């Protein structure tokens, strides 16, 4: 039984289940990530040093430049990408990058998604409807 359903704007990509990595900070693949090692590399980022690989990455807003539009696909191709991206506010670059990479993306939620979801939540993400279902809390992270 799910703990809670959170509604967002219909997004991009296929349904996916996974474990959340969340913070009330913003996101740019070029500005924030060490894409070779799959960790956040900007010292001032709330997720500095943490691995995002295979996670449902939950952050506030898309920031920074245009490079993310290419980078998400390269990250997915090397098996070093997140499994979905949930943002309060995407921008065109995130949408373009998600479409190019086939990476599930939802934004514009009914509540602050970085407060609703916590790292360790197991969720099901359904971009076609904009739904995120919380399936389980406090999952032990792999």
């Amino acid at each position, binding site marked *: 039984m799910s703990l809670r359903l959170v509604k967002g*704007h*219909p*997004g*991009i990509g296929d349904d996916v289940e996974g474990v959340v990595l969340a913070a009330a900070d913003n996101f*740019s693949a*070029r*500005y*924030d*990530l*060490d894409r070779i090692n799959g960790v956040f*590399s*900007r*010292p*001032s*980022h709330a997720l500095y040093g943490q691995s995002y690989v295979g996670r449902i990455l939950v952050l506030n*807003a*898309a*920031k*920074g*430049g*245009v*490079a*993310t*539009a*290419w*980078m998400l*696909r*390269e990250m997915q*191709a*090397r098996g070093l990408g997140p499994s979905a991206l949930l943002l309060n*506010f*995407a*921008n*065109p*670059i995130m*949408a*373009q*990058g998600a*479409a*190019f990479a086939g990476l599930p*993306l939802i934004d514009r939620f009914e509540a602050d998604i970085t407060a609703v979801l916590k790292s360790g939540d197991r969720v099901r993400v359904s971009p076609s409807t904009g739904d995120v279902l919380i399936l389980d809390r406090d999952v032990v992270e792999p």
Partner: protein
Amino acid sequence: MLKLDDHEQAMLAGAEGRARQWAMQQLIQVGRFFDAKELVKVSQVHLMADTEALGEEGVRFLEGIAAYPEAERRVRVPTVTDPRGADFTAYRRIKQKEEFVELEKRAADALRALGILMTDTCINYQTILPPVKGEHLAFGDTGSTIYANSVLGARTNFEGGPSALSAALTGRVPRYGFHLDEHRRGTTRFAVEAWLADYSDWGALGAVIGRRMRSYFEVPVIEGIASAPTSDQIKHFGAALASYGSTPLFHMVGVTPEAGRLSDVIDDRAPAISITDADISAYRASLTPADDTLHVVVFAAPQLSLIELQQLGALLDGRKVHPSVSLIATTSPEIKSAADRLDITRKIDGAGGILLQGVCFYQMHAREIGEANGWRRLMSNSAKLVNILGGYNYETVLGSMEACVESAVAGRIVA
């Protein structure tokens, strides 16, 4: 509901080949995400496709498009490129790996096969074909986008590489965001009372305002700019604002074309956020290093105009960069040719500086060249550059062009 005309339907159905079909699919996914009702024709495309962003996967994708028959792969509107990841004429001087350069050559070959003009510049609005007010575009660099929207009154969203390529192949983008009048209204008012002299001051102002931006659709309105800035000053302001805020449009009252008066772009009863010299100083202080160690001085992001290069050449003429420090400036191939012809390159070279063409510092695998050259402490007059490189294992310092040159000569950071 996103409506398509007959030609667009045909492209989507694959009647004009698989490249245009893929492009239509990309445009439709993004259009639906932003509730676009139709597509809009664009008159030029600015494509960002450096290999640090593309990676091997992205280059393979471009080569796949380039392998289609010529009639299926040629772009439909004039398409120019953003800076690349390597200056083929000078990459050894900064110890770039051959493998990156090889990847860059493959990408360039693929892009040429599509009929794309390899201009390799982020200042195309100064050097190639400045857009016109009301013109719909697909611009693919945050700096070129914010300049075209704000200073020139053209209309574009941030069109990242795959999306700009889709626009080039179809001649269209989804009509949402900054193509629409309703999104071009100002949302947040800033009253500026600050002394803005050097380019880094303008960049700092962009950073201070950009840090306050909460989403892509927030449009800052700036008041209090007493006299019109130069193209290079407002370029640094816009580039920093777009970098810190992910912001594609601003209005500057009395300066930019849609904001003759405050009330043209925002309710003039809206409260104004005050920005003063203290805010600029606090931002600069956040970039003050613990000591005066210096490894590299960079002038880039955006690429330098001919006028900026002339200023840099004059500051370096007859001087010597300290042997423990590297000094790098980047510009477009066209401006590099002009600098060669006008005796500017000689002054930079003569001082031991390196003038690179067709690249920008952060797009040249900045992490790897930093490691190869032992660069950790970096000084620049670009607020955009110091923002980006914070995530690339650099300690960054912002200074005026004069302070950067004095520091490079002294071999340590001097104010």
